């Protein structure tokens, strides 16, 4: 049976209710007996009659008791509410009386609670909110594993075989988020972003169309009628939400597609980090016969599976491994070393941002702890001043429990005020986070909503109890006599109070050291990261993508001529030092392919070469200033029909030829040398330096450069080195392109400096945030030190006066005060360094080129904190030095 809370209190006076009832009943029976005996009954008969008239005593006792208990419970609750109201009113009054104290405490708490709320709202939206799909817990991201490859992708032919032969999933679907098309026939040519999806993909996610229908498996083969699905945002912005677009024709890359549906507004086609919704969604099957989707050895698609009920990810993946065994035998070349891996879809969303968010949450928790310690210390010093008030109230009969409750109420009121202001800070903070880190997955969905508000409320209450505990206990233990006595001699709060405050300050310093060390590590790591030589000269270089649609340029030769014309015009622009064309930029992430070398045994699968591949013009290396190592450059003679050549980066020579010169070696694209490989052999003619093509923090896997003249290419990055400002160059570039073909848009215009900056955006974000929190922690800790020392000086004014009177030098006085501050700081720093050493490991995943226990960083953090402590102690020390012994001793 459920026992209401008030009943538990009731046990304390249940005996009263029972005793009262017994007495009342007894009185009744006695009175009735008296009444009857007065009318001539014998006492025995009267008693019997009185009891008979009363009826079933036990039953009535029971009924009366439950009525009494209900009344008592109600009154108890009412009383509690009244007391609480009184306590709150009293707390508000007493906080109003000290506006400076209240303001500092509220602001400190607001900073702590606000930071926590802001970070929690991000974590809530990124990690805790379920993905917007049907039964998202059963969705699994799947990918091929291949020796040397770490991209979570699958090739289209392998996907088809997985789909047909697997048994662990209800179905598997794939998508490609980065397609792009030129849309014509509706005003100016414009670039639209597209996603390619397998016909079952959207049904598998469980998303809905707002209009029309989804793409279905019937649309999903090379011969199907061409259909397209519009994203709701694109439907609204480009077509003004006009329903008549349904059934109309969309011309993309000179192919006509029928619009069959519009996605619902909240649908996200890609679960992946930072992927914007595409404008159009097309069936990938339409392209299944074209490269790269016809290449089994070239993984390009993201796969998602929906688990059958009661099948685990591991079981489903090991079933895929069974399929892979077959696929390796059937396609020994392209599927050499093929494996499979899978993880819950949420893992795919959070895997890059999770460590950073965890660190940030830990950091803001530390900031909040410091804020707590600080306010606790403030409240303590205030309660020292109130020691007399408490003692007096105790003497006047206030229960010790009441005073403890009063102090706690004040703390909770303070914390709630801080929490309210903190929510405001969090709203602003989330907005700031969004501007700092646009690309992070689902971050844009972050806002302060109900769960976040509940979190803020919970944190506020907890905070209030936490920082209120020490002062409450302290006030409760106020020794009546000594407090009144001490009170008679000034405002000494007692030694134990000072000890508590000192301990709190030491804790603040320790936590601040941890935060400072953490941010120091990230700053150092970021410095290392940005100092990495990318392998080329990024300054004064801009790049923009140009793609000629196959519909308008059916022959590659036509496209080649047009691109050459464009380059000639660009080179003629004043200020252009060098211009070139390349399929990829020398940064992350280039296209990849497996490579087989003629001189190397195919059987050695573990060393199968997976290299970055870039198709470039001869001037590529000059424009980007990628140093040349040996052999010869790509030359104008390396054209179609001439012997096929290639350049490799140094890494390839080191990895596959043990450092010996690879010049003269022959290679071809694609895995094994068996039946399925139809690409031709090429000869390596030169070696260039590596560029950081796999992220600045990663050693590059090595790049293979092929001359554009020998490849089929309808576009790429126009890369220009010039002395002119980037905006000016961009305008000139647009003009040049318009002269060549006004229907082709200039895409992804960027300076190489900016492109490199994007690569360090994540680490930069973490570094900035952690540094911000460390700064807040430092400020709070210094205020804490200042408060304690300053208070101490006030308290010891008399003692210092005596010392000076007895001949102590000003210098000694200052040393006394500063020494005390430095002692506290030193203990705090020592504890903090130990904590940082212990906790540093958790940062190691985010560090580059610096260890989690970097002595330089720890040393710097320690010295910095000691310096801050010194600074915080200076003002009180100066005040102590100016103490006039005559005045001080008289005042005492």
């Amino acid at each position, binding site marked *: 049976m459920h026992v209401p809370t008030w009943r538990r209190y009731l046990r304390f006076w249940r005996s009263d209710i029972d005793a009262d009832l017994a007495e009342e009943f007894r*009185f*009744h029976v006695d009175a009735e007996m008296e009444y009857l005996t007065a009318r001539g009954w014998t006492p025995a008969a009267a008693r019997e009659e009185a009891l008979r*008239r009363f009826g*079933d005593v036990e039953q*009535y006792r029971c009924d009366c008791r439950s*009525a009494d208990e209900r009344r008592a419970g109600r009154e108890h609750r009412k009383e509690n509410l009244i007391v609480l109201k009184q306590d709150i009113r009293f707390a508000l009054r007493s906080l109003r009386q000290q506006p400076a104290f209240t303001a500092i405490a509220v602001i400190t708490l607001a900073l702590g609670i606000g930071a926590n709320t802001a970070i929690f709202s991000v974590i809530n939206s990124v990690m805790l909110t379920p993905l917007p799909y049907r039964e998202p817990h059963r969705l699994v991201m799947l990918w091929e594993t291949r020796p040397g490859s770490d991209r979570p992708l699958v090739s289209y032919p392998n996907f088809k075989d997985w789909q047909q032969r697997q048994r662990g999933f209800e179905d598997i679907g794939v998508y490609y988020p980065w397609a792009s098309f030129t849309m014509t026939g509706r005003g100016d040519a414009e670039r639209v972003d597209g996603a390619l999806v397998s016909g079952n993909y959207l049904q598998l996610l469980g998303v809905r169309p707002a209009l029309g229908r989804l793409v279905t498996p019937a649309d999903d083969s090379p011969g199907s009628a061409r259909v397209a699905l519009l994203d709701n945002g694109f439907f609204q912005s480009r077509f003004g939400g006009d329903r008549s677009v349904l059934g109309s024709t969309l011309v993309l890359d000179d192919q006509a597609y029928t619009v069959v549906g519009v996605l619902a507004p909240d649908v996200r086609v890609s679960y992946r980090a930072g992927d914007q919704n595409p404008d159009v969604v097309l069936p990938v099957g339409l392209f299944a016969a074209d490269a790269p989707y016809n290449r089994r050895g070239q993984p390009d698609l993201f796969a998602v599976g929906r688990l059958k009920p009661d099948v685990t990810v591991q079981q489903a993946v090991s079933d895929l491994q069974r399929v892979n065994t077959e696929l390796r035998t059937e396609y020994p070349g392209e599927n050499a070393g093929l494996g499979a891996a899978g993880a819950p879809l949420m893992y795919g969303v959070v895997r890059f941002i999770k460590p950073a968010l965890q660190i940030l949450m830990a950091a803001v928790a530390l900031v909040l702890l410091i804020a707590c310690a600080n306010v606790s210390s403030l409240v303590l010093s205030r309660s020292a001043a109130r020691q007399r008030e408490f003692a007096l109230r105790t003497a006047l009969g206030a229960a010790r429990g009441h005073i403890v409750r009063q102090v706690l109420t004040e703390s909770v009121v303070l914390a709630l005020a801080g929490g309210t202001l903190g929510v405001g800070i969090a709203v602003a903070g989330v907005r700031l986070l969004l501007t700092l880190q646009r690309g992070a997955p689902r971050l844009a969905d972050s806002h302060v909503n109900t769960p976040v508000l509940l979190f803020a409320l919970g944190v506020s209450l907890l905070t209030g109890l936490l920082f209120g505990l020490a002062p409450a206990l302290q006030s409760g233990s106020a020794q009546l006599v000594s407090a009144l006595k001490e009170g008679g001699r000034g405002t000494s709060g007692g030694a134990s109070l000072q000890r508590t405050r000192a301990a709190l300050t030491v804790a603040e310093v320790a936590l601040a050291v941890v935060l400072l060390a953490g941010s120091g590590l990230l700053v150092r790591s970021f410095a290392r990261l940005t100092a990495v030589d990318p392998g080329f000269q990024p300054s004064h270089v801009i790049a923009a993508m140009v793609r000629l649609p196959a519909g308008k340029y059916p022959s590659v030769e036509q496209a080649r001529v047009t691109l050459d014309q464009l380059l000639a015009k660009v080179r003629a622009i004043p200020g252009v030092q060098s211009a070139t064309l390349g399929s990829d930029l020398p940064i992350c992430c280039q296209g990849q392919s497996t490579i087989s070398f003629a001189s190397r045994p195919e059987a050695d699968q573990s060393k199968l070469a997976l290299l970055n591949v870039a198709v470039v013009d001869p001037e590529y290396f000059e424009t980007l200033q990628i140093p040349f190592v040996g052999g010869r450059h790509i030359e104008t003679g390396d054209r179609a029909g001439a012997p096929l050549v290639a350049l490799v980066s140094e890494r390839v020579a080191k990895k596959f030829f043990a450092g010996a010169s690879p010049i003269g070696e022959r290679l071809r694209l694609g895995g094994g040398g068996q039946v399925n490989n139809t690409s031709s052999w090429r000869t390596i003619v030169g070696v260039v330096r590596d560029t950081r093509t796999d992220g600045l923090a990663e050693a590059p896997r090595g790049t293979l450069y092929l001359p554009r003249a020998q490849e089929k290419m309808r576009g790429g990055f126009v890369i220009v080195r010039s002395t002119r400002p980037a905006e000016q160059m961009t305008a000139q570039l647009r003009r040049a392109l318009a002269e060549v073909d006004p229907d082709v848009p200039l895409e992804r215009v960027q300076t190489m400096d900016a492109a490199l900056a994007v690569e360090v955006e994540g680490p930069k974000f973490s570094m900035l945030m952690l540094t911000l929190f460390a700064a807040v922690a430092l400020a709070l800790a210094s205020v804490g030190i200042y408060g304690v020392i300053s208070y101490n000086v006030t308290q010891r004014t008399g003692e210092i006066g005596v010392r000076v009177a007895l001949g102590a030098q000003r210098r000694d006085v200052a040393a006394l005060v500063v020494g005390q501050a430095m002692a506290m700081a030193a203990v705090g720093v020592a504890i903090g360094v130990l904590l940082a050493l212990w906790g540093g490991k958790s940062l190691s995943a985010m560090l580059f080129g610096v260890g989690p226990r970097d002595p330089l960083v720890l040393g710097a953090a320690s010295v910095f904190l000691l310096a801050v402590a010194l600074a915080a102690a200076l003002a009180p020390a100066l005040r102590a030095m100016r103490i006039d012994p005559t005045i001080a001793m008289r005042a005492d």
Partner: protein
Amino acid sequence: MATPVDLLQGTLDVLVLKALSWGPRHGHGVARVIRDSTSGTLDVTDGSLYVALHRLEERGLVDSEWGLSDKGKRARFYRLTTAGRQQLKTETAGWQRYVQTVTRLLTATTQPA
């Protein structure tokens, strides 16, 4: 007032309120007033009066405090609260309407049209 028990309970409550309307009384006093004024017509046990008193107290219609009886013994005295007085007025009026209606029908000498 759907069932006889409710009728009895409700009636008992009114009688108790009425007994208290002349001033504070302990439970025994209430019992005596009811017994005497009804000459034993109503078969009410004394214990059920106490249940009525405690429930009326729970509903805030009566108040109680401990005092001394005229014989100098500790006894629990009940008195009407303002709400109780109001309740008595309402219930009395309702009761009278009920009785008049029933009486009018039961004492009718001519068949109603």
